[in-house]
């Protein structure tokens, strides 16, 4: 699945009401580590269809960043059944991101 951009208008539908787990990538264009994470997320999105990955640009979506207490990026937040399940901050290796989503 491709990574889709999410904003405050479709966040509820795409993330909170999703019937599969969602990894939300809070990022910004000027953030180097975020740009490093992106290719890893693209790979994960291609390899997995049991969850989806969406992107939130924190400059365009200040409200969403505020609502979810994001104050450091890259910030990856996993949602399951509409609830926050786990999150990680900063650049992480692929294996760690995978276990963040799949972890029990």
């Amino acid at each position, binding site marked *: 699945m491709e990574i889709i951009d999410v904003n405050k208008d479709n966040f509820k539908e795409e993330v909170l009401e999703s019937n599969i787990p969602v990894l939300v990538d809070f990022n*910004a264009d*000027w*953030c*180097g*580590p975020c*740009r*490093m994470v992106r290719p890893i997320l693209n790979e994960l999105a291609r390899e997995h269809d049991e969850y989806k990955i969406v992107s939130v640009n*924190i*400059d365009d979506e200040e409200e969403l*960043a505020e609502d979810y*207490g*994001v*104050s*450091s*990026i890259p*910030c990856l937040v996993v949602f399951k059944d509409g609830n926050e399940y786990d999150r990680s*901050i*900063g*650049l*992480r*290796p*692929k294996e760690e991101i995978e276990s963040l989503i799949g972890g029990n």
Partner: protein
Amino acid sequence: MYDIIIVGAGPAGLTSSIYARRAMKKTLVLEALSYGGQIINTLSIDNYPANPNISGFDFATRLYNQAKDLGAEIKFEKVTEIMDSEGFKEVVTTKGSYKTKTIIIATGSENRKLGIPRELELTGKGISYCATCDGAFYKGKDVAVVGGGNTALEDALYLTDVAKTVYLIHRRDEFRGEEALVNALKNKNNIKFIYNSNVTKLNGDNRLESIEISGNDGSKKEILVSGLFVAVGRIPENENFRNVINLDESGYIIASEDCHTNVPGIFVAGDNRVKDVRQLVTAASDGAIAATEAIKFINNR
């Protein structure tokens, strides 16, 4: 068997790989996290020759592609140990082990933590180690910076343009950083200097709400801040090499400008070496020297 294994894909390590490949040496670069090292956090590099205004990410990506195009093999595996055996060396990672004729250690450094309770728990919830990355979240808010070197001063200066009030906390009564930066800060009207003090406590339920400052004279006070930017230096990532390589008391690998360590055939390049100037250009310079020395070592055997 590799000719050269390079540990770390930052500017020093990748520059080494360019020199190694141009000399047709079989080269493996091992990286624990991502290429580029700490330079990827820099918004704009303005002191590297001939390339003003390039972003750290673009710089790192160009360097990475250059190394790959020249035929350097790059694997994302964390090195846990190196061994010096009779006639060859061995590099152990989390995924396997590799034999090589020479090793270049270019692991760089990581942020030094304050080492106080709840620091890890509140990281990303008010505690940050990168003002240019996270400063934007503190528009119109009160924040503090702790440290006394150039990074602390640059962070504080950057934050004065974003935040409402910036407290700069330093354990001494004088800054180690450049005077020009100190003067620029003194001209700002939303900065407050707190000298001879340390941050000793972090308060807040789910995110940082206030910090406790303890003065060297024993006084304590609480200040309300929603962000604390930690800039108290960096520590070299050499712990995994301590059993074979000589380190100084701060953990840096002991080597002169020729990048030779105490073990023949093992070299060091970049910020994790004992040196005075730790800059992008000196990391690249070390990379060139270490690779050239490694090539010489191989060819003379």
